[in-house]
């Protein structure tokens, strides 16, 4: 009988495939993972405390830095929460522009997930193709919001500026090309036998566990339930769009990967519909310079971010700064299942699982 010792390997915080400052301490028996202990906080900025010392408008750019890969989604969530708090009605045109920007952000985030999964599994070329396509979204963001990554384009009451006139054709051609991109990702990666072998049956997250652990977003849907807040509790004008919710069946890495790829297509559909119905009109509601919600009022508002349920809980004391702001970060809670899905797998599965759970540390550490 061979004697073997349990030993630990520290994946991160400085490691090529931990998507930021994630530190996963793998307890291993040979190549088999016994447990994974996740250490967070390497990018902790205490955003919730910062919020208490900033006015409602000043905090907008900070939210963009939560999920910096899908920059418009956390901003959208925050702005909608504050609008709910104040009862601000956003103009139609702004709502449509917001939907377009939010879905573009979702695509950008998923493309990063695809690209990063590519490089994590050793398909370096997949990284480049994902990044190449994402670059077009970055150009759109630059064109509208002025910044490529953290544009803070969505503002309380509407959007910062009207879309430039070249916006619509550019976005339309991008939405049109999404199926071609998907074909390429599928051809290079999904259909590849090595790829399938590395993902199939790896990191299985059962539906029961997923709900119990509060996993949301593509990771929950991959486990086999069509739960999407855009449909379940539509915010903004999402009830007006026709799109499908891709669902997996086994909840393994391959399902998570496929759900993300399919969501690109659905986001493309939403963008096309929004472009078709884009009305003319105001782009921002009349918002007072100093925002003072009624004292004692509080609201929990959630949106379907690229990573899952992104919720903001804001308590107002009547001042111009939030009394308490809490961010329900999907990455933070999705990461909780990392030990669960890794146990029993081999060392390389940690990398696969981190990649397909798609956490973003800016959001999880806040």
């Amino acid at each position: 009988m061979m004697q073997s010792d349990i030993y630990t390997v520290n994946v991160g915080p400085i490691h090529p495939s931990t998507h930021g400052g994630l530190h996963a301490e793998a307890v291993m028996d040979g190549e088999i993972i016994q447990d994974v202990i996740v250490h967070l906080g390497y990018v902790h900025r205490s955003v919730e405390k910062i919020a208490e010392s900033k006015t409602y408008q000043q905090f907008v750019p900070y939210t963009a830095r939560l999920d910096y890969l899908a920059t418009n989604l956390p901003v959208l969530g925050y702005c909608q929460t504050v609008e709910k708090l104040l009862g601000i009605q956003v103009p139609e045109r702004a709502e449509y522009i917001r939907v377009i920007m939010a879905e573009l952000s979702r695509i950008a985030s998923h493309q990063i997930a695809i690209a990063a999964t590519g490089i994590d599994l050793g398909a370096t070329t997949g990284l480049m193709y994902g990044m190449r396509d994402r670059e077009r979204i970055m150009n759109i963001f630059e064109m509208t919001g002025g910044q490529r990554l953290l544009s803070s384009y969505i503002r309380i009451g509407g959007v910062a500026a009207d879309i430039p006139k070249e916006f619509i054709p550019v976005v339309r051609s991008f939405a049109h090309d999404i199926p071609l991109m998907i074909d390429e990702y599928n051809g290079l990666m999904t259909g590849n036998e090595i790829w399938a072998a590395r993902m199939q049956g790896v990191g299985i997250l059962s539906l029961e566990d997923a709900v119990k652990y509060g996993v949301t977003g593509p990771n929950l849907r991959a486990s086999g339930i069509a739960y999407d807040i855009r449909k379940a509790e539509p915010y903004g004008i999402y009830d007006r769009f026709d799109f499908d919710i891709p669902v997996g069946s086994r909840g393994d890495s391959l399902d998570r990967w496929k759900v993300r790829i399919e969501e690109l297509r659905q986001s493309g559909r939403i963008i096309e519909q929004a472009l078709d119905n884009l009305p003319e009109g105001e782009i921002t509601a009349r918002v007072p310079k100093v925002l003072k919600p009624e004292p004692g009022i509080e609201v929990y508002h959630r949106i379907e971010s690229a990573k899952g349920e992104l919720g903001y809980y804001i308590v107002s004391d009547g001042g111009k700064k939030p009394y308490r702001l809490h961010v329900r970060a999907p990455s933070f809670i999705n990461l909780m299942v990392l030990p669960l899905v890794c146990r029993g797998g081999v060392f390389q599965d940690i990398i696969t699982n981190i990649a397909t759970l798609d956490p973003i540390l800016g959001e999880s550490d806040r």
Partner: protein
Amino acid sequence: MQEFDLEQMVQNIEEQLGDKIRTERDQFFTVLNIDSSELLKLMRELRDDYGFNYLANLSSVDYGEEFEVVYHLYSIPDNNKVCVKTRVSRNSAEVDSLIDIWPTADWQEREVYDLMGINFKGHPNLIRVLLPDDFAGHPLRKDFVMGGR
């Protein structure tokens, strides 16, 4: 399972818990203010009898003398929602841990412990999650003195 009725549920719970519970309604949520001693019982009932299988958000607010722990519950896929709040005094800030009911409370409770300094009774691994282990104080408390620039 019969059709879910929020009003019916609130009525049932109020009957059962009497003065331990106080219900508030605003335009977004039905809020159940529960005495911290009955929290575990109420939560278990909410999950088992009323299908709130998903603890979406666990947060806490510092109200000076008291801390308020706030739970936002949803049910998947029916999408019913309810908010549960409980208050504990600043001096003996301790709430029952919900980790047995919803495992997702694990890190969320650790976060509240870390940033707000509320203890969760029955949590198996109540250590700081975001801040370093040797950090002094709990930043989200209002009396925390911010340093830096």
